[in-house]
Each structure stands twice: as structure tokens, then as C-alpha cells.
């Protein structure tokens, strides 16, 4: 039983980790605490509905469509809404992301109607037996894709010149500007990556359940993940996501479903009190 619960938690945590990674990328690059991240998850599910059910694109093309649309959405939001607020107090930007989230929800409900949409992709749906442990192929695919994305972006940030520039922008904005790097381009890229990662999570959540605006709440579970892991840390977001997934399943199994919220948020409070920069974040020191 323990193994079964652990593996299901790991699969679930992988999706949270993916969304949390997108959140961390945006925060690290632009210092924006994006409350619309949950709606990016919803957008991903509806991009999939559009590509697969409405446009009936072949699956590989549909994947390209979803990634392209999600990246474009992130870039446009940065260009039109976030960039003009550059230098303004953080509260204004936070309010903007909350307003954006509400507007996106209303827009989706107007375009697609209030009903949820079923999302059927050609992804495998059977069950894999590993000894006594049963893992659905869909969960396994979600976990594998999440890990590939996480590893891919980890390598991107570590070894590519664009990734290094993005990290530099996040670490020392002024120094990068002086070096002649176009910071806005880097920030747009960060928003594009962040929204794409959330959208990929949304595609899996949409297929595991149903494509509806209610996925926003699940997408927002990435928030405790990213705080636990460390707001500024890419690996921290991933491990935070996995931790949240495993804790949720363990608490639901051995205590009660409701207790999972208590356990997750008590952990979050403890982290904020003892190590506010998260498990994998770095303490910021400032000269006085």
C-alpha cells in the first residue's frame, strides 16, 4: 500500500512540479508573483480542447499548437501588461495578475461556455503493473513528460547562453542592462516558458479530469510547492512539487483527505518561519 501511495503521489507531484517550475521561472526572472499561473493551467487544457476536439489536428501538430499558443500568451501578457508596469510597486503587479486571472476565466467561459469539456488525447490510458503497484499509463506519461521538461529546462538554464543570460537577468538586473542585454526579451522568454510549462500541466490535468476553469484551483497548488522549494530556485520548485504531491497522497491515505491541506500548509508555515527562502533557495543578503 505504501509503495502504491508513494508512486501515485510522485506522479501527482510531477504535475505540480511542472506548474511550480513555470511559476519559479517567471518569479526568478521578473520578480512577479504570478497569481494567474493557475489560469495558465486552464488555458493549456483549453488550448488542447481547441487543437484536438475543435480543430481536430493530428496529435503532434496539436502539441505544437498548444506549446505555441501558450508561449505566445505568456509573451503577449508580458508585453502588454507586465512590461508597462516595470518599476512600479509589487502590489500593483500582483493586483494585475489577480485581475488577469479573473479576466481569463471569464473569457474562457464566454468562448467555450460554462460547461467543462472532455479532453481525449491519444496518450496511453492502460495500467502498468510493477509487482503489486498499479500505475496508470496516463500518470506515468504525465510524470515522464514533467521530468523531461524539468530536466530540459534545468539544462537550458545551466548550459545554454540564453539560459545563462536569463539567470543573469534574474540575479543582477542592472549589471545585465549595462552589459547591453535586452532584458525585456529575456523577461518575455521567461513568461513564455512559464506559461508553456503550466499549459503542459493543464493538458495532463484536463485529461486526468475534465477541461474546466476549476483546474485553476489545482494549478494554484503549485504555490505552496514553490514556496516550500524556494521561490528563486528551479530545482527547489521541482522538489517542492514532488513533496506536495507525496504529502497530499500520504496524508489523505493515512489521516484523512482534508488533513492533506493542513499538513502541506503547516509545512509551508514552518518553512516560512525557519527558512523563509525555502528548502533550496538562497538567503538574500543586502549591504546596509
Amino acid at each position: 500500500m505504501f509503495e502504491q501511495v508513494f508512486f501515485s503521489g510522485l506522479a501527482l507531484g510531477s504535475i505540480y512540479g511542472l506548474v511550480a517550475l513555470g511559476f519559479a521561472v517567471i518569479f526568478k526572472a521578473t520578480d512577479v508573483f504570478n497569481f494567474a499561473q493557475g489560469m495558465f493551467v486552464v488555458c493549456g487544457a483549453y488550448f488542447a480542447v481547441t487543437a484536438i476536439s475543435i480543430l481536430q489536428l493530428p496529435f503532434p501538430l496539436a502539441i505544437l499548437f498548444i506549446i505555441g499558443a501558450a508561449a505566445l500568451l505568456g509573451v503577449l501578457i508580458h508585453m502588454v501588461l507586465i512590461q508597462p508596469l516595470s518599476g512600479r510597486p509589487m502590489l500593483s503587479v500582483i493586483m494585475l495578475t489577480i485581475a488577469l486571472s479573473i479576466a481569463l476565466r471569464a473569457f474562457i467561459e464566454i468562448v467555450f461556455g460554462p460547461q467543462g469539456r472532455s479532453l481525449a488525447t491519444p496518450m496511453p490510458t492502460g495500467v502498468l503493473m510493477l509487482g503489486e503497484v498499479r500505475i496508470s499509463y496516463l500518470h506515468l506519461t504525465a510524470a515522464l513528460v514533467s521530468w523531461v521538461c524539468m530536466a530540459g529546462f534545468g539544462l537550458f538554464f545551466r548550459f545554454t547562453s540564453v539560459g545563462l543570460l536569463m539567470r543573469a537577468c534574474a540575479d543582477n538586473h542592472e549589471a545585465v542592462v549595462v552589459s547591453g542585454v535586452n532584458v525585456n526579451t529575456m523577461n518575455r522568454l521567461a513568461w513564455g516558458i512559464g506559461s508553456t510549462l503550466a499549459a503542459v500541466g493543464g493538458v495532463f490535468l484536463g485529461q486526468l479530469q475534465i477541461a474546466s476553469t476549476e483546474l485553476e484551483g489545482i494549478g494554484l497548488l503549485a504555490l505552496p510547492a514553490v514556496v516550500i522549494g524556494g521561490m528563486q530556485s528551479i530545482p527547489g520548485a521541482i522538489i517542492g512539487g514532488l513533496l506536495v504531491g507525496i504529502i497530499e497522497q500520504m496524508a489523505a491515505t493515512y489521516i484523512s483527505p482534508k488533513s492533506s491541506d493542513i499538513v502541506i500548509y503547516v509545512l509551508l508555515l514552518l518553512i516560512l518561519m525557519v527558512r523563509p527562502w525555502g528548502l533550496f533557495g538562497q538567503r538574500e543578503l543586502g549591504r546596509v
Partner: protein
Amino acid sequence: MTASTLAFSHQARHWGLLLSATLCSLTAWGQDAPQDGVYKDRIDWGVLMDMSGPTSASQGIWVHGFRDHMRKINEAGGINGRKINVLAEDNRFNPATDKIAFEKLVSQTPVIAISGMGTSVSQVALAPTIKAGKVPIVGTYTATKALSEPVSPMVYNGFCGYKQMAQAGVGYHVDKLKLKSAKVVTLAIETAGGKEYHDYVAEAVGKLGGSASHLTVKVTAVDMTPQILEIMKLKPDFITVYGVSNTAILTMKGLAQYGLNIPTFGITYLGAPQIFQSMGSAAAANYKFISCFTPGGADQTPGNKALSQYADTIGRGDMKQDINYVAGWISAQMAAEALTKLGKNPTRARLIETLSKGFTVNTQGLTAPITYTPTNNTGPVVFKLIGYDFAVNKFKAYGEFADYEKYAR
């Protein structure tokens, strides 16, 4: 008379005339003022539902069903020479908004009656006001004890009740599976309604010599592994699900993942085609929902044909299979039936008086006949189980309402 006195007298006459004219026009306006939302050419009927927020996916569709039936009536000339104007207020899943909207419909933009009241918390909060007020609630979307018990001439339930859902669903499965001491699991989201539903299930199965266990799940659950492992331990004969669409989808997908073939039925609210489609044909093979309404297109009764044809005509073909759409349509039928009885001079007081004597709504097969009496305003009490035929992408009923009448005790 001096010039100044003359000027004063002239001015006074001028003001007097102006005052008289104002009074006259005010009197005329008063005579033309809406009496309880009733005008020369129309009657205003209120709707209070969540058209945005977390429950809008179901309640928003109910509003479409309600509006569409009224639209059909208006296209045919209205009721007793007046068109029905539906004033729908969006509660946004917020009891405070509900209270403001309710007061607005009672006094500011008066309506003759109100339908919907979808948020149970608001129902509980507003129950004393409604029962002591002057505006009847005809066709509630959810039936809370606070509003529906004891019976009040101000409230007429318009949706399937949890108690009756439990009785019919449990009764049917116990009979069908020939169980002597049935073991049932109620899988419900962690809400007061979920607990209440489980209590009804436990009561129904207890009367038939069986027992029920209660498992809970989060509304935002993404995985049901803990619950499915518990179900494997409990080995129930059948399961009943209370929750949102995801609760049903994840339950059936989870059962399929573990190779468990356990008959399962969901509450009426879990009767939307996209729920079955999201489960997939294999996982949905064991799933049905219990309903006092027949989804559009599921049979050929006159009521169902009328609903289906009209929904197709106005481009709502995709909603007609949704049970919430049918529920809204039927609540509008209730409202229309009530207004028809009032004749040429409808008022709130006459509506209350007429309804309190009891009335029957003939939905022509969309439900079993719905009868209200001075001592019973429960509304629809006869149910049937409905599954989904993936070959034709339509709902299919397991028997007729008449087959289930024995469970409506």
C-alpha cells in the same frame, strides 16, 4: 394690487400649476407603476443563480434551460396576453451577493416570484426572510432543510432531493443485484451536503438490512488512490458518488485502473455527457446517475421531443443532454403553470394563495408528474437511473419512471 404683489401672485400661480402637473404625473406614474412585477404587456420573473464562480458550470446551464423555456412561451404569445421577462441575477457563489440580489428582486426591480436559489448557504441564510416575506420561490435548484422544512407556502422545490436520490439508487441496486445485506460505500466531497447525503444512503440501505461506509475526498482532488485502496478493503456491493464532475470522473477512472468492476451511481448533478466522455467507455461502463429528470434526447416522450427540438432550433443542442438544462426548463414549466392559473390579474398574493392550494405540473414525460399539495412541496420524487450509450453518444435510461415509483416512499 401693487406690481410686486401681482408678480408674486403670478409666480405663485405658476408654481401651483407646476406642482399640480408634477402631482398629476406622479399619480399617473403611480398607476402605471409595476404591481409586483406585473405590467400591461409583461410579467417580471426573477432568477437567483451562480452565473459566474465555481458552480457556474452547472447553474449557468440551468439558467439557459429556464430562459429557453420562457422564450418558447413568449414566442407562442406569452401567458394570458403577457410576455414573461426573466430577470436573472448572478450570485457569484457569494451569500452576500445573494442577499443583495434577493432584496433587489423583492423591492427594487420587483418580480412576481423567484426561481433557482442555487447556493445552499444562501438558502439557509435567507430562509427566515423568504418564509416571512411576500415573494414565493418557485422551483428551487437545491433543496435545503432550512428552506424546505417545515413545508411553507412560500417555497416549492424544483430539483431532485438527496433523500429520494438515495432511496431510489439504493433500492434499485439492492433489487437488481439481489442483495440480502448490501454493503455500500458513499464517496463524497468533504461538505455538509456530502455528510447529509451519506446519512440518507445509510438510512436507505439500513432499512434494507445493509450497511454503508462513508469515504471523503477533496473537491480539488486530482487522484483517488487513497480512496480506491480503501474501497478495495471494504469490498462494497456498489458505490454512490456525491460531488463535482471530477469526483465522478476520478472515481471511475480509479476503479478501472485497479480493475474493480463495482456498480456505481452518482447524484443527479453528476449527469452531464462530458462526465461520461471524460471517463471513457471502459471506465463509464459501471457508472450511472440517478435522476428525476430525463436528459434531452434520451427518449421520445412528447416533453423530451419538445425540449430537444427547441434546443436544437436555437443552437443549444450541446446543452440539451445536460441535466441542469432540463432542470431549468422544468422549473420554467412550473413557473408558467403557476402563472397560467392566475388568469388576467396576477399578483404576488394571488400567486401564493393559488400555489398553496396545491398544483400539478405535467412535464409530458421529462419527469414523472410533479404534484405539490398544501402539506408537501418536495417536488420531483420519482427517479430513474441513466447511463450513457457511447455507440450513439446519447444517454439511455434504465427503465421508466413507473418502474421506480416503489422506491419513492
